[in-house]
């Protein structure tokens, strides 16, 4: 975008703009301009058909009468046409009002004769109304396929008429500015000024969706005309599918282009027929505009601690009955979401623990995905939130190293999730008194391979398999005042079923603590004390 920054006062700028516009129009082939005006093409469409890209020319518009006076000064031989054939321009026969800022919004016809300014005002007030705080934005525009088709039709019309003239030599349709780009050019400066920030590849999106009631039908018809060409679904009537397609190829309307390409072919094939008739004389129906603003998801990451044996990791409801008194997901989500003022959140974690297992020590990495955040929290406010969560009245859940993170944290968290080591502390009871030799025999086992059949408690929903897992190390810690209870600290490969490793699951995990100590072993409590991952370990 040219850095055309005239800091002069508004009226002067407008005056200058109009003058500049007049100058540039005068340099165009007058007869062609008059011709285009007479078939109902708006000024901005004329400019873009001639490949004029500089935004200064798109700022102001010229009414047909003004244009006529501009052209009237010239020495065109067809001068008489200027006064005779100019209708008061209603809706442009190419852009269907899009570049005239005339369209239906909420079923009301809005005419913005002046410029893009009023649309920019509506957009920026919507952004304010929705409470967004932004430091950049990107503009997505979706335009009905009929506009592209019109481009081609008019181009062909010009080609047929002016092919032999010198100014047309070497011109190609690819030099034209698309209506979509012309709209962006027209809007951008006002938007940047009003929003106080630059357009960028931004997580904050402004989406303008133009639809036209006859657009899809027309394209379908003309495509059907092209000898059984396989028709792409263009969204019968409602224009919704068309919109989606256009959004996907934001900026470059490849899909819609393909349709037009085909209709273009059909037009060429029927060049002699009536196909080239422009929608002249008919009063064009303006497009409908819907605009919305949203922010792509942001992520708050950290490590969570779970202090309760009655809190699940994610919201767990069976037959309308909640399991546990709360969930980590809901506690974190309900506290973090209001800070970012988002619409919704999604909770992701690196693995999980059973509801009756606490998550202590290092905590477990998690990501909270916030949808459509109105506000991107500062480091201070995130730190403040961490303190707040850690001081909630019910101390069910805690957080560590809470921070705003990029989407690459997603991979970081998933990476090595399967291989990571985890450390646990289990409260174990055995059917005989603990002996000193037991402490040695247990700690002497290093990287012990065990075979686990799918535990009975999950066998109903998981595949019956025998999996090999590694117990990296184990230590017994005696409990003062008890001979049959002890703490077992152990570090294992991810995916090891610890409870089954202790009690043996009817001999289906081998070896088990019971089989190693040749007695019955029972587990009373289990806590995860470390999830050995790099992810979110430091602030």
């Amino acid at each position: 975008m040219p850095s055309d920054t005239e800091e002069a006062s508004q009226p002067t700028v407008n005056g200058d703009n109009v003058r500049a516009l007049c100058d540039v129009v005068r340099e165009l082939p007058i007869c062609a301009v008059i011709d285009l005006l007479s078939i109902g093409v708006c000024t901005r469409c004329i400019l873009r058909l001639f490949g004029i890209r500089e935004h200064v020319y798109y700022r102001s518009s010229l009414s047909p009468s003004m244009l006529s006076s501009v052209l009237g000064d010239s020495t065109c031989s067809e001068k008489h046409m200027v006064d005779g054939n100019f209708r008061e321009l209603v809706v442009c026969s190419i852009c269907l009002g899009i570049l005239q800022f005339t369209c239906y919004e909420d079923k009301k016809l809005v005419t913005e004769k002046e410029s893009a300014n009023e649309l920019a005002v509506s957009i920026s007030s919507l952004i304010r109304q929705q409470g967004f705080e932004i430091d950049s934005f990107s503009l997505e525009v979706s335009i009905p396929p009929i506009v592209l088709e019109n481009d081609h039709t008019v181009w062909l019309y010009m080609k047929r008429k002016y092919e032999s003239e010198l100014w047309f030599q070497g011109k190609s349709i690819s030099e034209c500015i698309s209506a979509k780009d012309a709209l962006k050019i027209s809007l951008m400066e006002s938007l940047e000024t009003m929003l106080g920030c630059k357009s960028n590849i931004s997580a904050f999106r402004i989406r303008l969706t133009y639809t036209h009631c006859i657009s899809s039908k027309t394209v379908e018809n003309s495509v059907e005309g092209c000898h059984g060409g396989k028709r792409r679904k263009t969204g019968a009537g409602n224009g919704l599918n068309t919109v989606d397609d256009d959004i996907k190829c934001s900026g470059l309307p490849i899909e819609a282009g393909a349709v037009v390409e085909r209709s273009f072919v059909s037009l060429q094939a029927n060049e002699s027929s009536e196909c080239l008739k422009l929608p002249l004389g008919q009063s064009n129906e303006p497009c409908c505009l819907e605009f919305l603003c949203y922010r792509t998801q942001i992520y708050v990451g950290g490590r969570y601690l779970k202090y309760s044996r009655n809190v699940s990791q994610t919201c767990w409801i069976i037959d309308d009955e909640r399991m546990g008194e709360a969930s980590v997901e809901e506690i974190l989500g309900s506290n973090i979401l209001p800070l970012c003022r988002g619409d919704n959140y999604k909770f992701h974690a690196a693995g999980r623990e059973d509801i009756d297992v606490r998550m202590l020590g290092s905590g477990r990495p998690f990501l909270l995905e916030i949808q459509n955040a109105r506000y991107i929290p500062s480091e201070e406010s995130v730190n403040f939130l961490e303190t707040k969560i850690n001081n909630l009245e019910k101390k069910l859940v805690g957080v560590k190293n809470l921070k705003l993170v990029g989407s690459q944290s997603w991979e970081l968290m998933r990476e090595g999730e399967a291989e990571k080591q985890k450390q646990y502390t289990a409260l174990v009871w055995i059917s005989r008194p603990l002996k000193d030799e037991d402490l040695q025999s247990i700690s002497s086992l290093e990287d012990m391979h065990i075979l686990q059949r799918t535990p009975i408690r999950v066998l109903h929903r998981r595949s019956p398999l025998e999996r090999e897992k590694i117990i990296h190390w184990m230590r017994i810690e005696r409990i003062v005042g008890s001979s049959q209870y002890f703490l077992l600290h152990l570090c294992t490969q991810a995916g090891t079923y610890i409870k089954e490793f202790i009690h043996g699951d009817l001999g289906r995990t081998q070896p088990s603590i019971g089989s190693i100590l040749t007695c019955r072993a029972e587990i009373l409590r289990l806590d995860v004390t470390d999830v050995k991952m790099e992810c979110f370990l430091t602030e």
Partner: protein
Amino acid sequence: MNEHSVDETNNAQEQEEHKVEDPELRRLLVPNPEDLPLTPPSSVEANFVSYFAPDFMKPGHDQYIYRHANGLCVIGLAPTHVAFKDEGGITTIDFNVGKSDRSGIKVTGKRKKNAQHLESNSALCKVCSKDATYIVRCCVKGSLLEVNDRLIKQPELLNSAADREGYIAIIMPKPADWLKVKDSLLGLEEYKKLREV
């Protein structure tokens, strides 16, 4: 590089100790011994509800059904099964019953492909003492998920731990089938009363 190796040494030392240093974490981990029961409930007692089928199809053929909350049923020989009264107890187990070898079928996948659908009176296996052979049956209609093939090599588990490592099989009944059969089974207390154990 240097820093890295220092880290590794630290890790090695940590691994050597594996002591929980953080006092807050210790406080959370170490229980008060006074709060602990003298004997905790076993994992079977804690996770399963016990049912019994006394004299199942034949006098003295007492079997247990341990039902997990997820619906799966572990089938085995009740302590009062007549086979245990034979001298030397059970010596062999044979999963070859009639047409099929129950231990030869590999059930796979979440949908439990290949699982045999058995009736409550279908035979699971034969257990033999020195003097006699007894047929062990399903007791509940359902899919046979696994048999305890470890018993083939270690049949003594039947005598020493029939209620744990000596289980016979795991059956997955349909909820409706379970409800039908449930009423015909005895609870733990009724069973104890009946057998005076």
